[in-house]
């Protein structure tokens, strides 16, 4: 678009065409977002008789502060290290250090995020907003799993659906169906499916294994909750990406397939050498869209787990909403959103940078 020809040199017309759309976006997205950024620098409450005050980056530091605490094992009178039942060293409780202890000013009010042993000592990584840290990790985990899996499944479906079979349109519609249904509705339905005692999933698995399967409390178990939500999210959105893949598939020239066939390529070789390379641009788009959707994970959590059990399904957007609306701390919630925005922005810039390099 460097060209500046008579054909396209039209300042006023250009503005006239763009301004309704662009103006609305400025008014209803950009300005509110700038306001949100402004909120994040104050102690604005959702409702309060007190006027907001500028607090600088306090909301951010409260959220992102981490510290390190090195703890010596407990020692008995004779100087021996105390050992618990399992033979591990016993350490004093961390609340001793983090609560009203002026000797450790840098970890006041913090909670243990995770810890590891360092010789005799225990090194604990402390976070001032532990829930947010978990939300951050969960969100990244969610993205890291959902993006590739959903992308891959969508691709497989697209390949299936790309066959020239009679009635394939019907299957296309069916696979796309979950996309059409509101995610709130879908989440409600899946709560029944995931139920711990007699949910559908458990009974199906039970039947399939002839009763050998032990019922799992899918949403109530720390180890399975996030995974279950991932599975459902993939189920819901995979049809959407299937369609995008399909469009990519249809841009690959059929003669390339014929050539590969004549050269004697197996189906897998055909995929590896013809299909996949032909989908590279599509892949970039799919990854970007999935990533953005995954980062804004909210409705599923809100309806299905409220972030539990034990914060194993906390996510950034859910936290931001919980903080901003539930706890009326609109400045804290805004700060989280800004952090999320910056995170996604940097990831997509990185993605763009990487893909540009290769071309």
């Amino acid at each position: 678009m460097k060209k500046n020809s008579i054909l396209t040199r039209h300042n006023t017309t250009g503005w006239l065409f763009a301004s309704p759309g662009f103006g609305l976006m400025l008014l209803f997205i950009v300005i509110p977002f700038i306001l949100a950024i402004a909120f994040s620098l104050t102690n604005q409450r959702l409702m309060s008789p007190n006027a907001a005050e500028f607090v600088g980056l306090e909301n951010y530091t409260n959220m992102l502060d981490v510290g390190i605490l090195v703890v010596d094992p407990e020692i008995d009178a004779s100087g021996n290290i105390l050992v618990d039942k399992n033979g591990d060293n016993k350490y004093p409780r961390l609340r001793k250090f983090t609560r009203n202890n002026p000797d450790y000013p840098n970890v006041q009010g913090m909670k243990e995020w995770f810890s590891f042993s360092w010789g005799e000592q225990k090194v604990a990584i402390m976070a001032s907003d532990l829930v947010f840290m978990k939300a951050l990790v969960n969100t990244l985990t969610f993205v890291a799993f959902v993006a590739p899996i959903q992308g891959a499944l969508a691709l497989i479906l697209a390949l299936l659906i790309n066959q020239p079979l009679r009635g394939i349109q019907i299957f296309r519609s069916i696979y796309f169906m979950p996309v059409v249904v509101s995610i709130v509705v879908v989440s409600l339905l899946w709560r029944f499916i995931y139920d711990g005692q007699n949910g559908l999933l458990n009974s199906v698995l039970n039947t399939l294994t002839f009763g050998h399967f032990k019922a799992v409390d899918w949403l109530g178990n720390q180890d399975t909750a996030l995974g279950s939500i991932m599975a459902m999210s993939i189920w819901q959105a995979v049809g959407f990406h299937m369609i995008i893949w399909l469009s990519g598939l249809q841009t690959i020239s059929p003669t390339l397939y014929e050539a590969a066939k004549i050269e004697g390529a197996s189906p897998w070789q055909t995929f590896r050498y013809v299909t996949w390379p032909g989908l590279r641009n599509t892949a970039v788009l799919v990854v970007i869209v999935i990533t953005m959707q995954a980062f804004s994970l909210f409705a599923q959590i809100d309806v299905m787990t409220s972030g539990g059990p034990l914060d194993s399904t906390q996510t950034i957007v859910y936290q931001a909403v919980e903080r901003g609306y539930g706890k009326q701390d609109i400045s804290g919630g805004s700060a989280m959103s800004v952090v999320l925005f910056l995170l996604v922005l940097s990831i997509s810039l990185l993605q763009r940078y990487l893909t540009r390099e290769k071309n």
Partner: protein
Amino acid sequence: MADLQLKSIEKNYGSTRIIKGVDIDIKDGEFVVFVGPSGCGKSTLLRMIAGLEDISGGELTIDGKVVNDLQPKDRGIAMVFQSYAIFPHMTVRENVGFGLTVSGVPKDEKVQRVNEAAQILQMEHLLDRRPSQLSGGQRQRVAIGRAIVRNPKVFLFDEPLSNLDAALRMDMRMEISKLHKKLDATMIYVTHDQVEAMTLADKIVVLKDGEVQQIGSPMELFHKPANRFVAGFLGSPSMNFVKVKVVAHDNDSITVSSDVIDEVVLPRHDRDVAVGDTIELGIRPQYLEPHHGELKGSMHGRVSLSERLGTETVLDITLADGNKVIASISEDKVFEVDEEISLCFDIEKVHIF
């Protein structure tokens, strides 16, 4: 390296019959060209040989073995497509070696065979480029290289040159011709460019509406077309057809005339005619010799368009009865539009239909 037989090959799409029982015999090492108007079924026939389309009826044998139900890769064929069908994300080397890669040929052997093929096609310096960095002709060469490297029994080409511009087309045509001589392989070539057909083929198969019109060497077809269709199809500009009435005939000759042609005596052809019959004369534009004015010659008309190409002049001539003929003169001559001219022709070179 292989001979092919097509025995009453048929192809139906649903209830439409596209190929209507085609018989062709192709000998080992022969260069066969399929020509015919667009939609006549050339590609379909070729693709059936390749195994890309099911054969609806008849039998296809390669080296005496029926291959109707064999997968493409098991037929020992290689194919070069009009759109090249080279893989855009692979280097030339990878493209050429693709068939070997997928069939698991050891690396050393692969390298060697790719190099050999590249040498034959004089594209060793291109091996590490990507298709996007190649010109059209070079791309087509890559496609051919990919075919060569596998040592197929039969090469199939589907209009391999029609995406190239005129000059390049001429070069590549010559290269394919040389390649055929060098490899001595059986080749089947589809085109609708008659120059390609004439220059490349050992044997031309003229198709129309899924039926074979004539099979023979280029000169056989050119000089002895089996029917009007074949006659009109080969040669450029295409043959003029003029309706005449038989005035008289004997064992050796036929005398004909019409409103626009003075009575001429033609050598007798192997065709039964009766006096009063309307027959058609076929005269190639190159054998029509125009002269200014109505001086001599047996046809008369007006120049409606004259195209001077420097070494050749093409005339559009409207005859007295409104029909048109084209004359082509192999030198630069000036004719005025609307000028009256008369045309001579060599009675030996006239075809009768």
